[in-house]
């Protein structure tokens, strides 16, 4: 059961959290600025790195995906509907769960599962 009444009022929470919030928002802003400055530098003439085109494409796709996640997370921050931002951002950064995984795993590993399971008879007797 949730705790019945929060000891602090909303005003008291904001009073306490305002400066840390401001600080963390600045950290986020600075990190995004840092990324964009590096991206701008990359677009200007720089000596070509010895990477294959596949490696570069993979890096670009990974970067794009992560950026998209960051942008979606920022959108979640602005959504005040259900007081569940932390949970939703955790879910955003999580791998998908497949509800059928267990059935498929059992089918693929029939010989391995349960094989050589230690039994109570394996316990060594005390001398």
């Amino acid at each position, binding site marked *: 059961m*949730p705790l019945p009444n929060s000891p602090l009022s909303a005003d008291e929470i904001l009073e306490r959290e305002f400066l840390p919030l401001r600080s963390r928002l600045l950290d986020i802003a600075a990190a995004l600025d840092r990324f964009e400055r590096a991206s701008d530098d990359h677009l200007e003439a720089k000596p070509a790195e010895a990477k294959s085109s596949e490696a570069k494409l993979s890096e670009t796709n990974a970067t794009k995906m992560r950026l998209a996640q960051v942008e979606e997370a920022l959108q979640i921050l602005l959504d005040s509907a259900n007081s569940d931002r*932390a949970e939703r951002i955790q879910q955003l950064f999580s791998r998908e769960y497949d509800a059928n995984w267990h059935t498929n795993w059992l089918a693929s590993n029939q010989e391995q599962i349960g094989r050589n399971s230690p039994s109570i008879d394996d316990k060594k007797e005390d001398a």
Partner: protein
Amino acid sequence: MDYFDPHIHMVSRITDDYATLSRMGCIGVSEPAFWAGYDRGTVEGFRDYFEQLTSVERNRAASYGVEHYTWLCINAKEAENVSLSREVLAMIPEFLDRPGVLGIGEIGLNKNTSNEAIIFTEHVDLAVKHKELILIHTPHLEDKLQGTRMILDLLKHDGRPERADVLVDHVEEHTVRHVLEAGYWAGMTLYPTTKCTPARAADIVEMYGPERLLVNSAADWGPSKPTAVPDFIFEMRRRGHSESIIKRVVYDNPLEFFGRCRRFKAPDRIAK
């Protein structure tokens, strides 16, 4: 306030940490077997590790008035090696009756692979057959939600472990509800960057209540803070929560869970 740290890797901490923990009110630490930062090569390496957990660490803790409890397993990361895992599983019973051993842990998943799931089920089987408590590691970061749900599926499919004998650790905002609704104990780990913070743990206690919730530091050889549980106590007090609610999470709940182990002996300070 006296407290327990139900998940901390003291084998990787210096003795000064025991001195600090003792001064901050820690009366007992519970240390699961974990990944040392490299993959051990043989079952003898694990035998030596279990010897260290069950003897050296108990003595080191005792010299500062801290009771040391431990758990035994091959951790999720090394469980990818199925043949080595089975050798370790066969060896574990040699140590189960050592003083301070609470059960099997920290088992779980790491990258949520098939081999990890196989060895997880074999650990559960070992725990059930020897009537042991179970402490479970849930994966890091993007693997946590998927892995936690897979772990809960595996436990449900097995069906034998008593809910009250199982602690699912490292829960966060997106996994705590699944663990509590399934009836297990849930541990919140206060660890920099990759896990929870004292403030977020306090939020979780406020949202779900203190029943079946524990907090720990999981302090290890990486950047981590062995005094994280006192940080949680401080945060809860700053918010104006009662001493009884705080004590429930950091003292009563660990005592109740550990007490389900037939070998459990409460710290001397409590017994007196």
